[in-house]
């Protein structure tokens, strides 16, 4: 019975793997190496798994209790133990070394990568890109308010031409390496697009980052991958990867920090005017009532 059970588990697992329609979502970034490392790990570990189960099934079949029979008495077998240790070490190294090699690429951001910023707060995303100067302006959480949702320092000239995308999708040009700077205003979040394979937590009080190159046009879901409160599962946006010209068109229509500030000032001035007009009217009204 248990022999059948064990074989069933081994065969069932392999069959499930072969027949499963559920596998990686097709990739859309340069991180194909990560998928390769996983496939390698899959083969090495999968073989060991099946081998161990089948060996147990064999023992269960062959060494089932028989009256009058004794088990072999041989507490240790130095040779066998050493061989198994060495083979295991080699197998582990065979996964670790390629893994660290790819990790080295992951942490080495190419010099030509364009910086963009993704900012998270409960429970929405916003995005910021450097303007023509290629530099993002400095920010400070204490400057964040309704008129300056990113907390950009108005005195920093680099910030004036920053492009702000609030409440819209993120657009990215195809085949250009991107360094994503990540910021959070409140709690931990995590920026993840399954097709890009790369993710990183966003930590309030710090700026974290990762890099990738989009390699396929299309619209992809952005999900939050670090529990951030009751709205966690609903914290969504999308990223549109498109050819350079389409991207430039989009970029030109976006709001810059300078324009946003000007709009705010204009509104403030209007409000003031309105307020003084209203005050005057009030005075007139009072006088008239007398």
């Amino acid at each position, binding site marked *: *019975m*248990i022999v059948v059970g064990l074989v069933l*588990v081994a065969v069932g*697992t392999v069959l*499930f793997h072969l027949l499963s329609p*559920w*596998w*990686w*979502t097709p990739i859309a970034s340069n*991180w194909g*190496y990560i998928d390769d490392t*996983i496939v390698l*790990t899959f083969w090495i*570990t999968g073989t060991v*798994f099946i081998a*161990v189960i089948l*060996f*147990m099934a064999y*023992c*269960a079949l062959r*060494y*089932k*209790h028989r009256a009058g029979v*004794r*088990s072999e*008495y041989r*507490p*240790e*077998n130095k040779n*066998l*133990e050493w061989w*198994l240790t060495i083979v*295991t070490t080699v197998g*582990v190294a065979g996964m670790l070394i390629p*893994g660290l090699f*790819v*990790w080295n690429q*992951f*942490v080495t951001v190419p010099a030509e990568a364009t910086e963009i910023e993704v900012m998270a707060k*409960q429970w929405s995303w916003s995005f910021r890109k450097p303007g023509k100067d290629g530099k993002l302006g400095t920010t400070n959480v204490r400057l964040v308010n*309704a008129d300056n949702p990113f907390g950009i320092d108005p005195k920093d000239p680099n910030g004036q031409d920053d492009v702000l995308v609030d409440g819209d999708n993120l657009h990215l040009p195809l085949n250009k390496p991107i360094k994503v700077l990540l910021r959070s205003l*409140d*709690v931990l979040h995590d920026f993840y697009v*399954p097709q890009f*394979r790369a*993710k*990183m*937590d*966003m930590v*309030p*009080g*710090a700026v*974290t980052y990762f890099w990738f190159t989009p390699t396929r046009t299309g*619209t992809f879901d952005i999900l939050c*991958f670090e*529990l*951030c*409160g*009751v709205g966690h*599962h609903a914290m969504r946006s999308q990223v549109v990867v498109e050819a350079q010209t389409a991207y430039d068109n989009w970029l030109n229509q976006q709001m810059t920090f300078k324009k946003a500030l000007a709009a705010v000032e204009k509104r403030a001035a209007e409000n003031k005017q309105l307020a003084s007009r209203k005050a005057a009217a009030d005075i007139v009204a009072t006088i008239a009532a007398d």
Partner: protein
Amino acid sequence: MAEVGAEIERIGPAEVEDVELYHAKSWITKYVFSQDAKVIAIQYSATAIAIGMVALVLSWLMRLQLGFPESFDFIEAQDYYQFITMHGMIMVVYLLTALFLGGFGNYLIPLMVGARDMVFPYVNMLSYWIYLLAVLVLVASFFVPGGPTGAGWTLYPPQAILTGTPGAGAGIVLMLVSLALFIIGFTMGGLNYVTTVLQARTRGMTLMRMPLTVWGIFTATVLALLAFPALFVGAVMMTLDSVLGTSFFMPTIVSQGELLKHDGGSPILFQHLFWFFGHPEVYIVALPAFGIVSDLISVHARRHIFGYRMMVWAIVIIGALSFVVWAHHMYVSGMNPYFGFFFATTTLIIAVPTAIKVYNWTLTLWRANINFTLPMLFALAFIVTFVNGGITGLFLGNVVVDVPLSDTMFVVAHFHMVMGVAPILVIFGAIYHWYPLMTGRMLNEAMGQFHFWVTFLGAYMIFLPIHYLGFLGVPRRYFEMGTTSFIPESAHTLNEFITVVALIVGVAQLVFFYNVVWSMIKGKKAGHNPWKATTLEWQTEEVPPGHGNFGRELPVVYRWAYDYGVPGAEDDFVPQNHPPKRAPARAAE
């Protein structure tokens, strides 16, 4: 190994006196405020299993929500997050840790090393009552305004104490207080277990003759004594952040449009403290399971454990290494990415001693004479699920592979296999194995077979497919998936299937509980040593053993715990306290 220390032969029987404490005066001191480690063990186990039932019911509710989203009005997003948090924390800390150390540790350590009791029986009793208090405080958090915390079992700040998270007021504070109490209670028990193993072994019980069960529990206890303090300080600091407005873990924050008063703290600091505890915690659960399963396999395969010394060293090395791998839970936390090189290397190194343990278990079966008893079946099932969960650990430990998989359902599947299903299978095996000692009766075989097959195959069918959802990119800790462009309809069907199996497996546990109660009254009488085991707990005068464990004289140990199938011996097993025949036994070696 069966060799006899000549000096021991000459030593007279050990005389640790029978003391007054062993003769309880009243029912209360015998069964309630008992100082007998075996009674404390049963109190610990019953409490752990009771609170574990709460966690089990919560898992059904979560599965209902995942399988049939939008069908249950009474499960809102905030409820779901509270369910996962309480489920995870209860399972890991209040069930598994308490059951393995407080339950099996208390019952087995003194008996197996040939001691009359733990060395500090009074402190041991206090340990249980403080644990009970911790559980009650935890349960109380279900009834406070705002309910229990929904911060995830990792309790990461800042969200754990901010308003966007359920239970951010009273719930989280009660959780932290309960954890602190748990740690205080555990420390009292833990010091006892360690001291008893080091100081109270009977004559002849050298460290290298101890059964692996004792090695596993002993090493796990040492780990826990070193790891829990990190959680303790984390809990105290977070309580201060929450109640007094300090900023240990809180940077400058704009929460829902409002600038908070906190400033300068580090959320990642908490993660380091948490995982400095959290990773060893995995082994606090796993090492006792390793030890116990080794003994189950050896007894029921009627063969010595293969490579005993290697097994002991593997336990010790795994224990030591478990303190230098914690940040593999933080590869994408935003810590310095160069740490990844170090932690991936240490993590994959652990795979080597772990694999050796697996080889030695299977090699114990090789050329053995296996009885397929229920404990043996559960032990085999443990190996299957443990190896499965262990190899997915190689995915997640290999830093770059973790990047796409972290915080997906793959992680959920991995840790359920390796530290959920596998240890629980060992617990069942252990209960089927030691129940005759505790009650004097055997558990019913037919009910046991049913329970085994449904639990093993069911649990495997629940968690194997979940890995594949993780590959797709389905996140963990999601109340509902909503619409996405990358998750096919078939994944929802799969989720329904998993939920149905989870409910069946859950209900099948009722058969087990029924069996435990039924057999207490109607079970077959077990007699002495029904499994023909060598270890000391089976060599007591009375079954179940009374307070004081052994008769007038403590047993004297002459051999290791694994003399099965010794050539030339009368029986196919020789108990540890069986004196050698003068000359021939040595020749046999």
